[in-house]
């Protein structure tokens, strides 16, 4: 208890002791150089009032009285700079603290280093980042002090990087310090660090430092190439999963059943419109659920497109089995009807489908920028295709579907109701197309023409992968996505797409059965 009291007394004495030694509020009445020093001293003191005082100075609102006391003019009031309290009576002979460019620089640097002590880690990191970019040797003392008390490891890293940058910018740092700094910069590895090291490797230095710097630059250039490659692969995977989603349903209706459904794109479109309707309804009746609108839309669009698919199979396609070219024409006609129907109901304009908060934004993964909507679409594609494969392989419905497509008569003889299975298979493929529509509503315009843009791509994906082979479709979609994305910077988006189409046409002519053809006697016939 006694000890505690002692401590309290001591603590209370500390500020006085400091002030007695060196008053941080002094020095503002002198010449420009004095003022600059005063600002630095104030910033280094760690005083809480430093920020408003220096801000006032920057804005020309800082005044000094003949007794050296500082005053801040705020609107019509005058504040005591030391306490921040309003004073009713204005002291006499207030002089505005003078500012020139040197003072302004000092103030800016001081503000930067002050943020290094901010209670908010994000602000501290940002300040350290600013030091990193500015490489101002003047910031070194503040930086060192901040480092000494920093507890957040990620902020620490940035601060160390900033210190390294400053060390490298000061010509008379020791080689040992510089080599250590180079290592830190190399670990950071971004363009900024690379350009600083680049400068360093060209400036006259000791050979060891020059070599270390240029080695680090070379290593970083390699890393950046790898990151750029990884970024390209990510974009490619994202495009590939869009293609995969669009093609997965077709892989069932066309690949497994052999039905050419030119209205497949419209099943996708229906899924997207279902998403739109779900959002409209939620907006009107349950705005709180808007964030979950996509989750709600997923089963609904599967059901809507799937039900339309079953209806199409029962009323149209079942009369055309074994006549693929007629099926093609009839379903094309159907696609026109569906498009016009949607146009008549919702209008020809693009509909606004909002993106929930958890899907917007991006994160950095190493040197790769990952946008959440693309990431979620990749995840969604994986889930949809995985579920599709599982349902074909492990459910009794899937077993019956495979039985019917492999040997219809035998399946019928075993008591499977083949017409029912046909309808369900077609409904499954259409429902998956509807799921694709939910995803596409997030990245494409929701309009009656939405599906048309995907129909040729989807067929290409399925044919390229090898008809009847779901894995082939996966590989094909991802390959096409990645190839497309890597061609884009070389050839431009449109030309890249044309090149891919032409390559596909040539490929199909060389290998009409796709990448992963099913072999066997039956196929030969």
């Amino acid at each position, binding site marked *: 208890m006694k000890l505690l009291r002692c401590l309290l007394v001591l603590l209370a004495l500390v500020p006085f002791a400091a002030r007695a030694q060196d008053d941080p509020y002094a020095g503002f009445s002198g010449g420009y150089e004095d003022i600059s020093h005063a600002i630095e001293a104030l910033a280094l003191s760690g005083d809480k009032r430093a920020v408003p005082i220096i801000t006032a100075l920057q804005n020309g609102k800082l005044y000094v009285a003949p007794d050296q006391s500082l005053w801040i003019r705020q609107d019509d009031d005058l504040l005591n700079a030391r306490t921040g309290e309003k004073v009713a009576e204005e002291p006499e002979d207030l002089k505005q603290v003078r500012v020139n460019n040197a003072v302004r620089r000092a103030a800016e640097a001081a503000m930067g280093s002050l943020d290094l002590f901010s209670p908010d880690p994000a602000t501290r990191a940002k300040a350290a980042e600013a030091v990193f970019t500015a490489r101002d040797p003047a910031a070194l003392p503040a930086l060192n002090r901040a480092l000494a008390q920093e507890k957040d490891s990620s902020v620490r890293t940035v601060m160390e990087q900033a210190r390294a940058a400053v060390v490298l910018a000061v010509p008379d740092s020791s080689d040992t310090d510089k080599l250590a700094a180079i290592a830190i910069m190399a670990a950071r590895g971004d363009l900024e660090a690379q350009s600083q090291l680049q400068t360093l490797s060209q400036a006259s230095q000791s050979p060891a430092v020059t070599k270390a710097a240029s080695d680090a630059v070379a290593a970083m250039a390699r890393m950046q190439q790898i990151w750029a490659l990884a970024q390209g692969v990510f974009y490619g995977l994202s495009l590939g999963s869009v293609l995969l989603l669009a093609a997965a349903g077709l892989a069932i209706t066309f690949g497994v059943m052999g039905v050419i459904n030119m209205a497949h794109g419209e099943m996708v479109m229906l899924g997207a419109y279902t998403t739109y309707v779900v959002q409209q309804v939620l907006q009107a009746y349950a705005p709180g659920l808007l964030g979950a609108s996509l989750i709600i839309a997923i089963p609904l669009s599967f059901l809507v497109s799937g039900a339309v698919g079953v209806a199409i199979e029962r009323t149209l396609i079942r009369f055309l089995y074994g006549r693929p070219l007629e099926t093609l*024409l009839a379903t094309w006609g159907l696609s026109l009807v569906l498009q016009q129907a949607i146009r008549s109901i919702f209008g020809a304009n693009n509909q606004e489908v909002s993106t929930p908060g958890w899907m917007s934004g991006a994160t950095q993964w190493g040197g790769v920028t990952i946008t959440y909507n693309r990431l979620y679409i990749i995840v969604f594609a994986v889930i949809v295709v995985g579920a599709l494969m599982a349902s074909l392989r492990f459910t009794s419905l899937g077993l019956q579907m495979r039985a019917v*497509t492999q040997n219809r008569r035998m399946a019928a003889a075993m008591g499977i109701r083949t017409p029912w299975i046909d309808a369900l298979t077609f409904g499954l493929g259409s429902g998956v197309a509807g799921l694709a529509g939910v995803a596409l509503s997030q990245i494409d315009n929701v309009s009656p023409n939405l599906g048309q843009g995907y129909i040729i791509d989807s067929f290409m994906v399925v044919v390229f992968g090898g008809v009847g082979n779901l894995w082939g479709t996966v590989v094909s979609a991802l390959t096409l996505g990645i190839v497309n994305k890597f061609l884009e910077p070389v050839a431009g988006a449109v030309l890249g797409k044309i090149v891919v*189409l032409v390559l596909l046409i040539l490929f199909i002519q060389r290998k009409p059965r796709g990448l992963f053809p099913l072999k066997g006697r039956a196929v030969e016939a």
Partner: protein
Amino acid sequence: MSPWTFRLCLVAVLGGAALLSVLNLALPETAAFHVPTYAISLAGKYLSFAMLALAVDLVWGFAGILTLGHAAFFALGGYAMGMYLMRQIGTRGVYGNAILPDFMVFLNYKELPWFWHGFDNPAFAIAMVILVPAVLALIFGWLAFRSRVSGVYLSIITQALTYALLLAFFRNDMGFGGNNGLTDFKDIFGIPLQESSTRCGMLIVTAIFLAAALLVARYLVTSRFGKVLIAVRDTESRTRFLGYRPERYKLFVWVLSAVIAGIGGALYVPQVGIINPGEFSPANSIESVIWVAVGGRGTLVGAVLGAVLVNLGKTVFTGALPELWLFALGALFILVTLLLPGGILGLLGRPPRRPKNVTPAAEPAE
């Protein structure tokens, strides 16, 4: 394809064109039977489409190749003609540049791209109308038929072909006027395009070309070549074991068909006054297939009949009830394939058996 329907068709095409022209030129505008000039152009457009339909019927009806990209050949022929018409404008364009068409001046072209050279010469332009579709068809067909791509696969890659061309022609830096295409034509072979007499002349020329194409097509399909072709359509593998090379037969008829389509496109452009990338859209190609299906596949005459009827319907519908047209067209696709596999001609004559589809469905899991 009985001889009397064929003769009737020839008479109707040639006589109809002549009659409309007479009613347009000889009668005063106030007369009850006067045919307005826009109707002449409309008729010319239908007959150009009929050539496209005839081209589709040749390959689909007789070689079993369901092409979903024939509008590409039509549009290429059209662009070749359009390029000639653009060069004919000369200094009468908005920018008054004697060499460069307006859109090139607008896009800051300094000189004519190499592929525009020669198009000021009508003979060269006409040669290109034939050669460009022919060469594209030759390359595409050679690759496709040699590797035995058939059926639905072939249909899909023909569609991809026209889709790729659509994307390409939309690009401004392709040098074909991008989105807007080629338009504002002034005259053809030195004759002003807008004159009624020119319009009638073009209609009659189109009718003559269509009649000629009908005669060539009929000769082809009734010759021994045509018999082989039909054999290939129905039982391709059997013809191979007889020593025929189906790919050669298909390639020949494919290229011929592309040329007919190209000429159709070249006749189409001066009569409608514009060619733009939209003509390449896969939807156009598929629409031309439905004309054939409506008229009757594998009858030649049916293609002409279907093209004229469906387009007449389109004109009437889009004028009166625009939003209903796509419903009507879609229903047409469905009803004809489901209920009327022989088309209109199938209703008239003795029912021709529906050609058997040899092209296997994608039934790999079998």
